């Protein structure tokens, strides 16, 4: 397979709070022969708040990154690991495409920095979507050195990538990560219902109790589904579910210890990388108990639960 190159927008959180996501992203890229070319002098995407204060500077701020990426790496797609950054970059491109008057305004702002951006020049893609589409779960399977036998994972997409605008996957029931985790040898929870539920976002700073309620629900649901760990693709989700898990436990009088892993860390483990290379250890709720569950041999196939004789058939689901 030829080397694949992408323009790369790491975003602020991968540099600081979620260092492990950045480290594991780069490690996995190396393993998969993917070259990530970081946009020179990129700036913050404004996260979620700025957009609601003043849209023009917010869009211009984001478009500056698109313009830089297009200038330097116009022929490559732009991959973004952070869901919020992804949504913002994608939304800005779309807004400029659909509303020429906005495109004009934004470009007038960019002109102050000798930049300009023609909407649609660069394709903004989430890192997970790029791997699962371009590389493919089947292909990934052939690279697995250490299958994740015995590990039961709850794929958690969060709310941002599932937005109808982002054209990521099904907005209600995305499955790309489910398929990918299965390809790595892990068992995937089928009844984790809150896979696109909001983690609370910055609500922790506004109404901590509300946020903790949301966080607790997600962890509770994953525990009920029998997961050893939740797998996420968003730094915000990881932060909330990991850092605030203890607070949620205190509030709801529970003692859950649910590790929150990045999908890149999970891929890395399956590729045979050491936990250290993947930034494992920087989290609040230790991943080690989950990692220790990985076995060398596939677990025996669970006997399909026999439905009682009088039970009515389940609806046939499409393949």
């Amino acid at each position, binding site marked *: 397979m030829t080397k694949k190159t992408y323009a790369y927008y790491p975003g602020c959180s991968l540099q600081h709070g979620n260092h492990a996501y950045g480290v594991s992203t780069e490690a996995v890229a190396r393993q998969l022969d993917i070259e990530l070319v970081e946009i020179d002098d990129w700036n913050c995407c404004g996260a979620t708040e700025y957009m609601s204060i003043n849209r023009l500077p917010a869009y211009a701020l984001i478009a500056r990154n698109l313009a830089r990426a297009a200038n330097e790496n116009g022929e490559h797609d732009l991959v973004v690991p952070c869901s919020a950054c992804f949504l913002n970059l994608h939304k800005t491109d779309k807004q400029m495409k659909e509303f020429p008057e906005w495109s004009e305004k934004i470009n007038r702002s960019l002109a102050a920095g000798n930049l300009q951006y023609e909407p649609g020049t660069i394709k903004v893609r989430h890192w997970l979507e790029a791997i699962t589409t371009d590389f493919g779960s089947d292909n990934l399977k052939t690279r697995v050195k250490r299958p994740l036998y015995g590990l039961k994972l709850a794929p958690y997409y969060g709310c941002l990538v599932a937005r109808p605008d982002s054209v990521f996957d099904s907005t*209600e029931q995305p499955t790309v990560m489910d398929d990918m985790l299965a390809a790595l040898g892990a068992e995937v929870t*089928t009844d984790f219902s809150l896979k696109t539920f909001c983690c609370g976002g910055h609500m922790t700073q506004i109404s901590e109790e509300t946020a903790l309620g949301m966080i607790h629900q997600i962890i509770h649901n994953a525990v009920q589904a029998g997961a050893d760990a939740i797998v996420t693709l968003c730094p915000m989700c990881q932060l909330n579910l990991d850092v605030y898990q203890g607070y949620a436990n205190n509030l709801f009088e529970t003692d859950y210890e649910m590790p929150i892993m990045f999908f890149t860390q999970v891929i890395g483990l399956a590729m045979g990388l050491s936990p250290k290379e993947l930034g494992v250890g920087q989290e609040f709720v230790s991943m080690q108990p989950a990692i220790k569950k990985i076995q060398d041999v596939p677990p025996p196939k669970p006997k399909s639960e026999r*439905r*009682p004789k*009088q*039970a*009515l*058939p389940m*609806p046939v689901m499409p393949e």
Partner: protein
Amino acid sequence: MSENEKRVGVYVCHCGHNIAGTVDVEHVAEWAYNLPNVIISRDNKFMCASTGQEQIEEDVKEFNLTHVVVASCSPHMHEKTFRNAVERSGLNPYLFEMANIREHASWVHPDDQDGATSKAKALVSAAVHRVLHHEELTPMQVEIRPEVLIVGGGVAGIQAALEVAEAGHHVYLVEREPSIGGHMAQLDKTFPTLDCSACILTPKMFDAGSHPNITLLTYAEVEQVDGYVGNFTVRVRKKAKMVHEDLCTGCGTCWEKCPKKVIDTVFESGLGYRKAIYRPFPQAVPKYPVIDVETCIYYDTGKCRACEKFCPTDAIDFEMQDEIVNLEVGNIIVATGYDLFDPRRIPQYGYGRHENVFTSMEFERLVNAAGPSDGRVVLRDGETTPQSVAIIHCVGSRDKNYNGHCSAICCMYSLKFAHLVKERTEAEVYNFYIDMRTIAKGYEEFYDRVLEEGAHFIRGKVSEITDATHASEEEGKLVVVAEDTLIGKQRRVPVDMVILAVAMEPRADAEEVAHRFGIGCGDTGFFTERHPKLDPVATVTEGVYIAGACQGPKDIPDAVAQGSAAAARVLSVISQREVALEPVRATIDEEHCSGCRICNTMCPYHAIDFIEADSVSRVNPALCKGCGTCVAACPSQVISGAHFTFDQLIAEIDGIMVDVNIDEPLVAAEMV
């Protein structure tokens, strides 16, 4: 007739205020005197009224008119009316042309009176220029075959078949499934009277199956339709049933012995099982089973043949082939019914993931005494009686993501379900609705009754059905989340069972079927009637009628009424014995035909033959439908499409481009 012998009368209709409110009709009528050969031009309050029509008749006589133009509504509305008036006045009815200044002018330009008036003048001018080139035409009279094809053996089709058969004419009733009966046969009770559905349908099915004037073609599909009103040729494929009906007694030994059990996704709606050789249900008509070759073990492995071994009459024939039947019929009624919305398309409702989410048709089977649970209201484990049931209305209806339309029956069957759950269990029932629509006789009273019985009604669209729980009372339950728009709060209602009132949708192959029968689908995908108010069972194709839910969502009484209505329409055509066909046909000037045969391949109806002996092409007028594709294609321009000739259309173009502001009389010669 030379050019200056032609004498045209122009009539501009006010249509009350409909046209005159926007178009200056007096001015248009006055101005029309500028147009070539116009002898008399009048405006009139209502041209379609008898006084308007009589005016034409009087003027033709008084002024020796040779051609008539009426500027009023769409020709689809009143072309026939005025042609008849022209004919009564002694002229050939085709020496007439209509200008559509209502639908195409006054009604669409209400804020632009000048624009609408100018446009009306252009359209009148076009009609006058065109009509000068009209020729006398005679409709072709063809005999009507009395046989009738009815496609679809649901309640609408059965009703229509019985009506036609009772009147003494032969009916071919084609049904895709092994038995007639349709969706109604699956239902338990019918709203609001709670009649047992099977009890009222079965006698009708039996009558249809045994009527000497009805030929049932079950497990069969119409593949091709040719011809025209009175004389259709229809090709039907009878799928191989692998069972000889003349030998089979319907004893049932074969399906008892068949070792292959499969989920019945048709009659039992996926909630029950059938065998690979099966009769869909005990009251099936005809009573004979069919082998489903997709699931039969023999067709997979070459072994088994259990049914054959045990059949007491040797009726099983594994080598049976599909049979093609060609039918000659005069009229066709399409009553192909509807599909149910697949709720897997709304993943947040969890159908297929949460086992106790049911579709409405699954629930019909569940409460049916002959169904998979013998009529017990139980969860999917087959034994637990629910303590609480939520019924979600408008699943896939009134939702722009899926179907914009209202499915018309869901409110009522949801009420019926609420009643049945209350009747058979102690469960609390929660109806989540957007609006309650109980619009027919006895329906609102039924709603009141169910309210009295204590069912809960929550006005709000359900956002999700989840097993992710918040509180201890939710554990182990399905939580229905909705905004209650009457109290303005979000509610979470934990229940044991959820029923999704799924939408009625056009059949998946509706477009294909519509095309086959020369009818159209509207924007919701259901078949289009000729007129939504005044001609609800006819279609744009003469001789093809529609009935039942294929035309739009409707309940049983409406479907039955349409079945009867379509039958009445067909019987009226049959009793006329003959029908006049529009003389809009192509003809080839054989003297100038070069014999290039380009037109031969153009014709979708194979109506053009090449006559080897004379090296020319010739149109078979009985097959020609008058589309004019060959006319436009002929490189020698020697094909003429009657009533849409080259000269007529060029004159119409020239006429429509008349500068509407000039006041001098126009000279026809200058225009052509």
